[in-house]
C-alpha cells in the first residue's frame, strides 16, 4: 500500500503538450477516479503512473519514492486494461501467475496465491480454461485477479468496464468497490463514465484538455461544481444551463433572452443585471401551475420511475425529470418552476461558478 503523488506532471509528444502540469495527491488506500471526456489526458496520466509512458516534466512518486525513471515492474503497481489484455495461449491460472512465475517464485507459492485470489473472485472453477472460453465479465475478473495476485502497492484501472454490457457493468462496479473495501489498496481508476466515478470513488478528479478542472468527493463535486464543465459532466441526465440576465432590482429572478421571467428562490449578491448562466439539474425542476414559467414539451421519455421531459424555454432546450404518468403530451405547454435551493449560477464569460449561499440571501 502506498500514496501516489503527482506533482506538476506534463506530457508532450514533440511540440504538442497534452497534459499541462497536473498536481494530484492520492492518499494511501484511497480510491481515486480520473474522469473526463475522450482526449482529456486521463489515460495518459494513468500510463505515466504505470511507467508505460515517459513523464515529460514533473514527478510521480509512489510511496514517497520518485518513480519517473523506474520501469513498470520496479514501481510495484498492477494494471487492469479495458480489453482485459489476457495472454490468449495461457490458462486462467497461468495468466494470473505469470508475473510471479517470471519473478522466479516457487511453484507452490504461485499456486497458493493464485488459488486464494481465485477464491476471492469466484474464479476457482475456471482456472484451467483459456481466456477465449470466458465471458467478458469473467475475463475482466481474471484481469483483476492477475493484478491482485501480485499484491501491489497501487492498482491502476484503465476503463475496465467499458467493454461490458450495462447489467454486467453495474455488477462489476459493486464488485470492484467491495474489493477495494476488502483489500484497502490504493486505486487509481480512469473512466469516461461519470456514473462509475460517482458511485465508486472516494475522490474524483475531473480532467479536461490535460488540465484538472476540479478534485473532490463525488458529492462535493455534484453539489458544488467549480464550473459549467464539471457541472455538466457529473450527474445524469446532465445539468441544464439557462442563459439570462439577473433581475436589475436584485430580486431573485432571471430574465431570459426572449424577455420571459423565471422566478428563483435566491440569487447571488451584487450581481444585479449581470449576464449569467443558470445551472439546474433536471431533478430540481418541478411542475408549478401557480408560479411556473410555461415551456413547450418537445419529447417525453417515460422511464417507469419518472418521466424525462425535453422542453423548450425561450429557445433553449431543457430536460426535466418529472413524476411518472404525466397528464400532458408533446406540443403542449407545461408550467415549470426553477425555484429550487440547489440551483447554480455561472459567469457567462468565464463559466466559473458564482458562489451563492441560498440560506443567507433573498430567502423567500
Amino acid at each position, binding site marked *: 500500500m502506498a500514496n501516489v503523488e503527482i506533482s506538476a506532471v506534463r506530457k508532450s509528444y514533440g511540440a504538442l503538450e497534452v497534459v499541462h502540469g497536473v498536481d494530484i495527491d492520492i492518499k494511501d488506500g484511497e480510491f481515486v477516479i480520473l474522469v473526463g471526456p475522450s482526449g482529456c489526458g486521463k489515460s495518459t496520466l494513468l500510463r505515466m503512473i504505470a*511507467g*508505460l509512458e515517459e513523464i515529460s516534466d514533473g514527478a510521480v512518486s509512489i510511496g514517497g519514492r520518485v518513480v519517473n525513471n523506474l520501469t*513498470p*515492474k520496479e514501481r510495484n503497481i498492477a494494471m487492469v486494461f479495458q*480489453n482485459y*489484455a489476457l*495472454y490468449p495461449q*495461457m490458462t486462467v491460472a497461468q495468466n494470473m501467475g505469470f508475473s510471479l512465475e517470471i519473478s522466479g517464485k516457487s511453484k507452490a507459492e504461485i499456486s497458493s496465491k493464485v488459488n486464494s485470489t481465485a477464491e476471492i473472485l469466484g474464479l476457482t472453477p475456471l482456472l484451467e480454461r483459456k481466456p477465449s472460453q470466458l465471458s467478458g465479465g469473467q475475463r475482466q475478473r481474471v484481469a483483476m485477479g492477475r493484478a491482485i495476485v501480485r499484491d501491489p502497492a497501487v492498482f491502476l484501472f484503465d476503463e475496465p468496464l467499458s467493454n461490458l454490457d450495462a447489467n454486467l457493468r453495474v455488477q462489476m462496479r459493486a464488485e470492484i468497490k467491495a474489493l477495494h473495501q476488502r483489500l484497502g489498496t490504493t486505486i487509481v481508476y480512469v473512466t469516461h463514465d461519470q456514473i462509475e466515478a460517482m458511485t465508486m470513488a472516494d475522490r474524483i478528479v475531473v480532467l479536461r484538455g490535460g488540465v484538472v478542472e476540479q478534485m473532490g468527493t463525488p458529492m462535493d463535486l455534484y453539489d458544488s461544481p467549480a464550473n459549467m464543465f464539471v457541472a455538466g459532466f457529473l450527474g445524469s441526465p446532465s445539468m441544464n444551463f439557462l442563459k439570462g440576465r439577473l433581475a436589475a432590482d436584485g430580486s431573485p429572478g432571471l430574465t431570459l433572452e426572449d424577455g420571459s421571467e423565471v422566478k428563483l428562490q435566491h440569487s447571488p449578491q451584487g450581481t444585479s443585471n449581470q449576464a449569467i448562466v443558470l445551472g439546474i439539474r433536471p431533478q430540481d425542476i418541478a411542475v408549478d401551475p401557480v408560479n411556473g414559467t410555461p415551456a413547450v414539451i418537445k419529447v417525453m421519455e417515460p422511464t417507469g420511475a419518472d418521466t424525462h421531459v425535453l422542453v423548450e424555454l425561450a429557445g433553449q432546450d431543457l430536460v426535466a425529470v418529472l413524476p411518472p404518468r404525466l397528464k400532458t403530451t408533446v406540443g403542449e405547454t407545461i408550467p415549470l418552476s426553477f425555484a429550487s435551493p440547489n440551483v447554480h449560477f455561472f459567469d457567462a464569460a468565464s463559466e466559473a461558478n458564482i458562489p451563492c449561499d441560498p440560506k443567507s440571501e433573498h430567502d423567500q
Partner: protein
Amino acid sequence: MFKLNLFQSARSQALILLIPAFGVYTLFAIWPLIDVVILSFQEWNGISADRKWVGWENYNYIFNNDPVFWVSLKNTVIWTILSIVFPPLVGLLLAIGLNQKLFGRASLRAIYYLPVIIAPIAVATMWRWMYDPFFGLFTQILTDMGLGFLARDWLGDRNIALYSMFVAYVWQHVGFSMVLFLAGLQGVQSTLIDAARIDGASRFEIFRYVTLPALSPTITIVLVLSTISSLRAFDIVYGMTGGGPAQSTQMLAMWAFTQSMQIFDFGRGSAVSVVLLVITLAIVIPYMRWSQAREEAVK
C-alpha cells in the same frame, strides 16, 4: 430477361463467374497433374504416338539404378531444411527491426522487399555474375580487402556450390517472409505488451510470451509457403548451375525437368515429379492440420 434472372441469384452468378476458370484449370492444371501420375507408369519419349505401360518400372529405376535421383533428393532435403530456417528467421529479425519506430523505415521495407519482385531467372543470372571466380563481385571484394585467399570458385566447387546458390535464394526470399511477419507484428495487441511490461517481463520474455504466440498463425503460413517454394526450387538452379558441377546442385524439380525435357524420358521424369509431389503433401498437410488444431485451441 433470361440473363437478368440468372444474375439475380447469387449462386448462378457465382457459377457463371467460376465455370470458365474451372474449365481452364481442369485443362491446364488438374489434367496435367493426373496425366503426370499416369505417365509415371509409362514409357514415352515425348514424340512417339505410343505410350507404353510399364507399371512400377520407372519408380524401380529411379530408386534403384539412378544415383542422381538420390543426390537430388538429398539436396532437396538439405535445401528445404535450410529454407524453412534461414529466410523466415532473417525475415522475422528484419520485421522486428522494421516494426520499431525509426526514421526511413518505409524505404527500408521497400528495399528489403525489392528482390522478391525480381524474376528468379534474373536473380540467378545476377548472382552467377557476382560469383564469377575471375570477374565476380565477391572475389573482387575479398581481393581488395587482402583476403584473396578466401576466394573460391563459388559455383564451380562441388562442396560449396549448393550453399552459394542458397545464399542467393535467401537474398531473394527474405523479403517475402519479412512482409508477412510485419503484417503479423502489426496484429500484436499493444495492451498485451503493456500488460507484460507491468507484469515485469523483460524484452525477451515479452517476445517469448506475447509476440511469438501472437505470430503463430503467421509462422504457419510462412513455414508452409517456404516449404512449398523450396521443394519446387527450379529456376534458380536452372539459371545458376543447371544442377552441376557433377550433379552436386541437382534437385528433384530440376532432375524431373532434365529427365523429361533433356533426356526425353518422360516416364522417369514424371516418376520424379510424383515423388516430389508426395513429399510436399506429406510435409504440408500434417503441418497445416497440426497448426490449425493448435490455433483453434488458443481461440
